[in-house]
């Protein structure tokens, strides 16, 4: 029971194959509750693959096979009998490129609430406002909630996608390089948002940007060629990495 409280998500011996390729080779990783965990590693190391496995996004691709288990709320996410809709309802995801729907700002945030059967208009309005406030977007858009979300800037769109994800109050939020398409100022705003969201959600963020990992994360996991090389508290990892490989990566010996 103590484990259950401490860890929100437990990944055990996760193997992922894409066709004949062995992409993730036995990853075991526990996500502590209400922390920010950064996933780093060179491109092609399987970070995104790992993130997408947690949300069962691979259901859409028949080429991909998964082995191992991911425990969440006492259930194995990878079990085909577990409803992916239930998983995604409790584990939100924000993608690399902002992907707002071609709807108004308000409708974007309300979308998840409506499909989950919330009918009370006043409640929807309240949750939309709260979510936009939490993602620090409210002040910028409060007078034009009916404007198309596609008219927002890239940084605003990404924070809208974040608001959209937190509106359905998931327990975990997965972020796939959310700032890679953004300018430095927008990036700073998104990072600020994430830090404040830590009190309510467990956040797993894939990032290419080592400085970003260092700035915002509590724990860091370093993936290399489909294997988890090192995992530990961020400060310790950046000051005194245990593995030579980690040290070399963090010091820009390869990337």
């Amino acid at each position, binding site marked *: 029971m103590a484990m259950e409280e401490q860890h929100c998500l437990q990944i055990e011996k996760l193997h992922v194959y894409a066709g004949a390729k062995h992409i993730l080779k036995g990853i075991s990783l526990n996500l502590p509750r209400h922390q920010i965990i950064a996933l780093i590693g060179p491109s092609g190391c399987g970070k995104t693959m790992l993130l997408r496995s947690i949300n069962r996004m691979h259901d859409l691709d028949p080429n991909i096979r998964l082995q191992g288990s991911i425990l969440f709320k006492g259930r194995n996410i990878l079990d085909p009998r577990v*409803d992916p*809709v*239930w998983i995604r309802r409790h584990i939100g995801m924000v993608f690399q490129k902002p992907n707002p729907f071609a709807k108004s700002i308000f409708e974007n945030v309300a979308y998840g609430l409506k499909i989950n*059967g919330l009918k009370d208009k006043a409640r929807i309005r309240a949750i939309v406002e709260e979510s936009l406030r939490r993602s620090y977007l409210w002040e910028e858009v409060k007078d034009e909630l009916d404007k198309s979300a596609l008219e927002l800037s890239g940084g605003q769109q990404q924070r809208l996608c974040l608001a959209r994800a937190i509106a359905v109050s998931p327990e975990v939020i997965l972020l796939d390089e959310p700032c890679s398409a953004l300018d430095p100022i927008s990036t700073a705003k998104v990072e600020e948002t994430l830090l404040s969201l830590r009190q309510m959600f467990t956040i797993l963020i894939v990032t290419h940007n080592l400085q970003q990992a260092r700035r915002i994360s509590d724990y860091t996991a370093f993936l290399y060629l489909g294997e988890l090389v090192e995992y530990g508290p961020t400060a310790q990892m950046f000051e005194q990495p245990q593995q030579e490989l980690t040290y070399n990566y963090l010091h820009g010996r390869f990337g």
Partner: protein
Amino acid sequence: MKARRRFWNQFFEKSLTASAFISIAILLGIFILLATNGWKAFQDVGLEEFLSLERWNPSAYDTPSYGLGALLLGTALTTLGAIAIAAPLGVGMAFFLAEIAPVRLRNVLKPAVELMAAVPSVVMGFAGIVVVGPFLAQLFGLPNGLNALNGAILLAFMALPTIVSVSEDVVQAVPRTYKEASYALGANRWETLVQVTLPACYSGLLAAVMLGVGRAIGETMTVLMATGNATAVPTSFFSSVRTLTATVAIEMGEVPTGTTHYYVLFACALVLFIITLIINIVAEQIATQLRRKGQ
């Protein structure tokens, strides 16, 4: 998930699957219907007579004859004539649009040609009677212009929009670097076009022409109105001919159901169906190979 939400999800997903099956069912249905009805014709008439050049005279009082030869020749004459006209014109125009024409001219001409594909076949047939026919009659000193050549010209212009549009895409898709390499070696525009660009898009152009042919061979109203519809074996492009499609269109309305004549018309349609199916599959094969090469 709530039961209601689950129910509607499953309801709609099942309906989608069902509708997809309908399209398979239609294709199978067409084939089965043509095959079963056509089969009866083969039993009654026999393949030998069917493919002979004997006269097509199904409503003769004493001994009706069902020689498909003249009709097949009619179809072949108009279709081959159409290819002979449309392929060079279409490919030539495609090269003009892709390589020579200024962008603004191209942006006007290409949609205009594509719009020609929308002209109903019956309007084309009408044009064959009032424009092309009289023109041919005058040019060649014929009593009237309703002959195989007229049909071929009209079919050519019906196939042209497809040929021009697809060919132009194919020519545009040839990488710039090919041409630049050729220019760098001192070749001029025409030499580059013939020796570098043309070989690079050969199979694409073939697929474009095939698609155009597929349209021409199944065309009914245009040839029905413009070729004169004589059932005799044609001797030249100035002969009046009757195609398979026109035969079905003319006679189907008047035959009693269940007679040999009725089944023979289904057999004609079956022959048409199989020819177009083969052309489509071949064109598709060429296009698939092309895509693979492109990757």
